[in-house]
């Protein structure tokens, strides 16, 4: 179809991909997930619930689930020894032409081998031994905060 610059319609979408390359997107996702784990570890270590802080790293159903889980732990006065870590982040998908919703999906290897929960009396909450697990992490992009928020975390049930 011949083009006619004088009659071309104005763009109807305001979506602008926030990252120029897959590498840039993955780096941003790694940084966002590191911050997510920092906040989760803070909640686990301290046995507290800070919905405002959780909302800086998660959104939607993921945020709702985090609030419910950490509220239960805080009510039970349990806290963690050690920290959850991750490595081996891989890009699953970066949608440049969609929307800011579910913009990025990555795979990460979560390491729970050095962390466990304890009751107020210091006994372990569960005798289960945790190791590594593959997880799929989905991010939304917050236009106002210019940052990624975890909108879904899907553990695969596999070691990595």
């Amino acid at each position, binding site marked *: 179809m011949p083009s006619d610059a004088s009659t071309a319609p104005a763009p109807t979408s305001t979506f602008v991909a926030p990252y120029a390359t897959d590498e840039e997107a993955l780096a941003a996702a790694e940084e966002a997930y590191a911050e997510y784990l920092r906040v*989760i570890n803070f*909640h*686990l270590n301290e046995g507290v619930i800070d919905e405002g802080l959780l909302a800086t790293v998660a959104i939607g159903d993921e945020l709702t*689930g*985090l609030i*419910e*889980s*950490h509220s*239960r*732990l805080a009510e039970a006065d*349990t806290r*963690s020894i050690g920290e*959850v870590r991750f490595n081996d982040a891989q890009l*699953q*998908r970066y949608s440049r032409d969609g929307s800011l919703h*579910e913009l990025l*999906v990555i795979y990460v290897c*979560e390491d*729970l081998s050095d*962390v*466990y*929960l304890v009751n107020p009396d210091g006994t372990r*909450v*569960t005798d*289960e031994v*945790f190791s590594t697990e*593959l997880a*799929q992490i*989905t991010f939304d992009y917050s236009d106002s905060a210019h940052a990624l928020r975890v909108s*879904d*975390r*899907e*553990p*695969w*049930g*596999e*070691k990595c």
Partner: protein
Amino acid sequence: MLTKLILLSTALLLGASGLGGPLQTSSPDCTLAGKLSGSCPQADVGNGTVQLEATQEHVGSGDGNFDSGYEADGVAYIPVDDELDSVEEAWCDIQRIECVPWTPPADVATTGPVTISDVASFRPQTPTAGMQPNQWMIVGLDTNFYATTSAHVVDGTLFGGTAQVRFTPIAYNWDYGDGSTATTSNPGKTWDKYRITEFDPTPTSHVYEEPGNYTITLAVTYAAEYRVAGSSWQNVVGTLTIIAPPLTATAGHATTVLVDQDCIANPTGIGC
């Protein structure tokens, strides 16, 4: 405008509309906090097997008749007669004692651990298996499988008293029909629910290497808990495995070609 379309070497396109599927529900808390507190089931998937305390295996289409006597973990419960005329008589029969006034079900705790055999009359819901694409697969690409089941409560009678049993799925055992098996703690779900594109790998996806017809079987292992008279949930020793109705599907090769138009709308278009 040229349109890229995947054509199958076998007549499988009619199945393409089945890419959607039932929504997956899950009750375990699998956030990191939930995982660490033991609220997210784990399965040993390291070598494709899972350690199960299996004492019963039911096929989903079976009649569920488990009225005969059985032995469970050293405690034998042998009905004296075949007919249970009343709650009181049933209780006496099971105890093999002279009938005495009704004992509240809460005394179940004094009879020793309740095993999966004791709750055999409580039938969990039959799980179902789903797949994407629906009933076909492309050789060399991931086919996504998922189970539809969740924790649920069944009412019934335990040792002559009303009771509830809660069944929680803890392991999903897949036989993909090509010699491959997998055991996962993840039920899987649709590609759409995973927020990924079709033919991407999932925790329960599988790649078929050869064309042909396959039968895929899912067996779901449940842990059970019981409670009587509003008491808290108590563990039931052992697990129960239920086999879902099998899936049958055809694997074929795929070829990518450029066509002039949408071949479904215009099957006679160039390249279709």
